[in-house]
């Protein structure tokens, strides 16, 4: 591990319910007011009480949206490109200063262009002509956001589109880390994107996992999860490349590890065994001991099963340090971004390091006594933060943890 290439985050970009930039998200993390509101994007007329979710109100037109993509790009594609443009611009990286085949792209998404696919089905069901929707169906696969981002920035290096449900973009970060460490790339534009869809909203409703009010992770009054949408991107650079150009090193992506519960397709292992394996593996990969960690951005969906399993995993790995490590879930602010959750939550971890601010566990004031973790109280906490852990778990029993370190 000693002679491994170190990897640094040099640019951030995000579009969430907070707005189309990292600055909007940063402000919202301190405002302590949830952005989960009545859902308007989808028809919820069949539900007497409606639904809440964290919607993106307006998606600005991305400057680098290819002409051929203007008709075909899905909502997830557009979200991705807006966030990627911000991240690359913020990094200050002149793309022509790096050979294009040394720039890699990894973008995680769980549903890709599903919203447009549903609209195509709807046209058929309602007897309308699908028109351009057909073109969007072919273009709307999970691999499309990565194609758009790579094209936008002329990246011809390694490429991957992981789709591991709600850990998709955490896997994208881990992949970018692995590529740069191995020398397969010098720069990696990594992130995730997911728009709201009828499938995900109705599916989680069917599983009785949706909260009628903004979700309350780890809280004894929890009623389930809240969905959100958006995209987040990070520019990763090899240390030598970043230092040579005098880049602003925002954080080190120090380690990552993934695992699978191999137990159930939707429910986490009740003892959090897979989560322990990923968390312990990521700390080992980063060369960090549990008592060095300052803040954990938990997966924290606010479903009973997830909260209990994750809390057990944290307690088991951190041991006595659990009483000191600050933990919060930011899903109470921007909802669960599914395939984009891992990226946006790692990004929030970078902000925590930069700002010396642990964001609050939104909407929660009464910790579930079964969750033996130290939750960050409303309002957040100003504290020096050197090392952050971000957990992401998903259907299929997927778990991925990434570790960030102050440069």
């Amino acid at each position, binding site marked *: 591990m000693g002679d491994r290439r170190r990897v640094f985050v040099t640019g951030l970009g995000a579009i969430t319910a907070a707005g189309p930039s990292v600055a909007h998200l940063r402000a919202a993390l301190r405002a302590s007011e949830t952005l989960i509101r009545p859902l308007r994007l989808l028809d919820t007329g069949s539900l007497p009480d409606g639904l809440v979710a964290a919607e993106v109100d307006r998606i600005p037109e991305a400057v680098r949206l290819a002409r051929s993509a203007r008709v075909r790009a899905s909502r997830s594609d557009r979200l991705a490109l807006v966030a990627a443009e911000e991240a690359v611009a913020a990094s200050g990286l002149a793309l022509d200063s790096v050979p294009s085949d040394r720039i890699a792209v990894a973008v995680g998404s769980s549903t890709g262009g599903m919203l447009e696919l549903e609209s195509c089905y709807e046209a058929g069901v309602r007897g309308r002509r699908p028109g351009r929707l057909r073109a969007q*169906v072919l273009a709307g696969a999970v*691999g499309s956001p990565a194609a758009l981002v790579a094209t936008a920035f002329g990246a011809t290096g390694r490429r991957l589109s992981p789709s591991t449900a709600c850990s998709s973009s955490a896997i994208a970060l881990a992949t970018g880390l692995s590529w740069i460490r191995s020398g397969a790339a010098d720069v990696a534009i990594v992130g995730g994107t997911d728009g709201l869809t009828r499938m995900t909203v*109705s599916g989680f409703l069917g599983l009785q996992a949706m909260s009628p009010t903004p979700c309350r992770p780890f809280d004894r009054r929890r009623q389930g999860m809240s969905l959100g949408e958006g995209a987040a991107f990070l520019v990763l650079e090899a240390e030598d490349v970043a230092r040579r150009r005098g880049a602003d090193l925002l954080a080190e992506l120090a380690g990552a590890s993934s695992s699978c519960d*191999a137990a159930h397709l939707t429910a986490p292992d009740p003892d959090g065994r897979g989560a322990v394996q990923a968390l312990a593996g990521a700390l080992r990969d980063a060369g960090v001991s549990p008592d060095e960690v300052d803040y954990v951005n938990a997966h924290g969906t606010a479903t009973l099963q997830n909260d209990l399993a994750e809390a057990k995993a944290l307690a088991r790995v951190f041991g006595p340090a659990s009483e000191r490590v600050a933990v919060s879930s930011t899903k109470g602010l921007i909802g669960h971004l599914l395939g984009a959750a891992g990226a946006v939550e790692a990004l929030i971890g970078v902000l925590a390091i930069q700002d010396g601010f642990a964001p609050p566990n939104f909407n929660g004031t009464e910790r579930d006594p079964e969750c033996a973790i130290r939750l960050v109280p409303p309002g957040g906490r100003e504290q020096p933060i050197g090392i952050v852990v971000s957990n992401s778990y998903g259907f299929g029993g997927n778990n991925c943890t990434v570790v960030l370190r102050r440069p």
Partner: protein
Amino acid sequence: MSDPREDAIVITGIGLVTPLGTGADAVWHAWTNGDCGFRALEAGDSRLAQGIDPSDLPAVERAAFVRDFVPREHVRHGLLRRMDWVSRMLVAAARQAYRDAGCEAPDESERERAAIVVGSQFGNQRETARYTRRVLDAGIGAGSPMLFPNLVINAAAGYAAIELGFSGPNLTVSEHEASGEAAFVAALDLLLSGACDLAIVGGVDEFGEVYLQALAERRLLHPSVGWNKALTQRGAGWLIPAEGAAALVLERADRARRRGARVYGVVDEAVTVGSGAGPYDLPSPAAAARTLRACVLPQGRVDAYLGLADGGAPRRAIDHACREALAAAQGAPVRYATFREQCGDHGSIGMLGIALAALAVHCGAFPDRELSSARVRRLALLGAARSGVLAPISLSSTDEICDP
């Protein structure tokens, strides 16, 4: 077996569920005999009943359905009940590959070091159609808790992990028509980075009506001609839609040697890179040839190229450019064959191509009808997707030759 580099990645198991048959032996013999996996679609076809009405598909008269596949022969009954068709095909192929590799049930430490990697372009299309129709008809509150979990594209990989007890990395990737090749590269990366000791890597897809309609509208489906005509009149048409799954066991050469495993082939090179093409464009033939040559020739001479032609002109042009480039660089023609023209096409069928390539270098044989049948020691193949992605791959043989 010769001594591949200790740290080389080798293929030690193959599992196939395809329109040419089920199992490596059956598929190899069908492919090399020139058999065809297409058949006519008929009204009331039992394989279509799950979601496809052929009357909605005037342009689709033939398709390639999997053959001789009985899921319960491969998958535990309790798990099988909950699985969709895509998951059944993938898990069966994964189970076959694991058995073929001579592996036993993993112990706890092996479980944590065993990965599943799956490539799929669209995942479970038929149940997605059923589910979506239901929600559109009855409202957003009508989502089925039984169907929903199977709709995520990584459901098949999750079921495979449960079936085999693998708790290491579990990854599903989607890269349009190169999803199989992209999964292969991702598995290779996991092994090379030390994230796992063994990986089962698979590709799986089925076809659904909305995609078929979209393909038909864009004239991307093969016109209604018989399969033999499709093979001989190569100027016309495009793809024949197919379903199927392929899975391989990958591990380090030293590990395979320690446990006395049979090695089908050594992975010399495999990457997934952009070509500079537009986000919805197939890479140009020139870019494909340049990338293939640059990636595979530094490792040595290539004896054969397994093409990606599917009956349509764009991919034949890529194959032509690649063959020419390899021949020019080596001073002699390379042998050439295709498989999509017998098996049909889907987004992750590249994994079947990699399996056939592994069998070819293992046997030293290759079904080129024109060039001599001298032994094939090293073989190149290529994935190319309408996302501008290229995935050049090369495999080489060990010294041992035997019938698979």
